[in-house]
């Protein structure tokens, strides 16, 4: 595949997308996981699908949408949904997790309607659900790289504040941090990352890329910076490895990427077990 990267532009785009998403998804995912918001990724990815299918549906009737990258609409709807999730969490103070199935159901409902109303999309539905190597366009790359720059800027600028907010929200408020504003900004970035990540891994598997590398890193790291660093390493291994394997096997990249991420997690857990057994043996000696 490496040699063919220089020949085929679609492979180059897919590779760039995989590298960038392998970085941004675990980066923002580290905060998502420690804030116990993993399922929000699922809700937002389903809503992104609704946005994409809505754009494709409109494209059948309006020339403007015909030429528009559907991921733009998906991203916009994902951001709006993130704000909606925030609002719903405020409405259900004692049952905040309810906001997730509400938003997810709405996303799936709209997706089903737009898909069934359409007279057949120009893109295969499975590429939306499980990602595709050939689906990544030049305009997707512009969007994915832009989102990565926004994400990195926000994390570098507000790292300390976001960490404090994640660890102890009440204390962060008492310290005078603008917690509501920071939370809205965080949700905005999460929505962006989820929307653009689905090009490579697909709607159904986006949340795995956000959470699995972090889940593996959490098993052995003691500081938050270490967690982020290792999650990115695992994310890159999964996306680049998954892309190469998916190309060779001619299957959807989403599935392979996620299975590699699962394999990394299983390996880390196995190594953890082996090390703890060895430690016990040393203690007995």
């Amino acid at each position, binding site marked *: 595949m490496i040699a063919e990267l220089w020949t085929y532009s679609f492979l180059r785009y897919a590779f760039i997308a995989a590298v960038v998403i392998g970085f941004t998804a675990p980066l923002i995912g580290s905060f998502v996981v*420690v804030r*116990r918001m993993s399922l929000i990724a699922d809700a937002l990815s389903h809503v992104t699908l609704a946005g994409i299918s809505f754009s494709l549906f409109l494209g059948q009737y309006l020339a403007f949408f015909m030429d528009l990258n559907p991921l733009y609409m998906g991203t916009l709807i994902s951001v709006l949904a993130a704000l909606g999730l925030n609002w719903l969490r405020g409405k259900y103070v004692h049952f905040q997790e309810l906001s997730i199935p509400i938003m997810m159901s709405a996303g799936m409902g709209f997706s089903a309607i737009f898909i069934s109303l359409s007279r057949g999309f120009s893109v295969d539905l499975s590429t939306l659900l499980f990602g595709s190597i050939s689906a990544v366009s030049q305009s997707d790359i512009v969007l994915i790289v832009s989102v990565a720059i926004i994400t990195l800027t926000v994390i570098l*600028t*507000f790292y*300390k*504040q976001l*960490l*404090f907010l*994640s*660890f*102890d929200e*009440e*204390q*962060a*408020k*008492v*310290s*005078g*941090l603008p917690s509501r504003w920071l939370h809205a900004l965080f949700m905005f970035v999460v929505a962006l990352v989820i929307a653009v990540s689905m090009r490579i891994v697909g709607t159904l598997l986006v949340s795995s890329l956000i959470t699995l590398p972090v889940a593996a*890193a*959490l098993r052995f*790291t*003691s*500081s*938050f910076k*270490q*967690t982020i660093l290792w999650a990115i390493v695992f994310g890159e291994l999964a996306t680049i490895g998954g892309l190469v394997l998916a190309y060779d096997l001619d299957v959807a990249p989403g599935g392979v990427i996620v299975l590699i991420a699962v394999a990394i997690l299983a390996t880390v857990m196995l190594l953890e077990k082996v090390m703890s057994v060895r430690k016990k043996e040393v203690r007995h000696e």
Partner: protein
Amino acid sequence: MTTSVVKLDHVSYYYDGTPALKDVSIDIRQGDFVAIVGENGSGKSTLIRTILGLLTPQSGTVELFGRPIAQFKDKSRISYVSQKAASFNSGFPVTVEEVVAMGRYGRLGLFKRLKMEDKAAIQNALETVNMWQFRHRKIGDLSGGQQQRVFIARAMVNQPDLLILDEPTVGVDQKHLRDFYEVLHMLREHTTCTFVLVTHDLNVVTDLVTKVVHLDRGQMACNCGLKEYSELGQLASIKPYPVKVLVHEGTT
């Protein structure tokens, strides 16, 4: 006369129409060690959250360091150790040093990094509670008592003028309770900080307390010195918490 640190004037707070604080007036002066006591649901935590500005009372006024709470911006003068500090997510991948550093984030501003003076303050706070050697350890891997020391270090890292502790020993076992109160005594001795402690056990701090506020179903049943409070046992209106050691030098 010492300056006012916290002043509540006829403060009432309602949760969905149910009163949690009713017409509460308190004046906490610089150097005071105030114990807030009362049954569960008596409004202790609501009172603390009102002082911290996390709740806005429906009536009455709150002043911090002589200024209306809405105009008070120097939050680093106030530190807080909550009940929840003991029940944090122990799997959170954060080191002891990172936790204490959080105490400096509020005063750092949004775009600044920790400077040498911040790092020195973190080291000083950790050394004060004897936890400097654990700075690279994950907070969740420490014992309950050690975690409490770290949260106190975080609270003290800004050398606050007011330290508020809301039942900080909930869930901490007897052995580590002693550790905690040792640190509290040491802080009282070596700082000029004003302390507000919500507690169910007055006896362990009788030599520190200068004032007792007893809340009863949101109303202030008593706002007096320790000696006066111990004598309330003869009154039928409230059931004061038992106080074994009645009077100490320096207490009122």
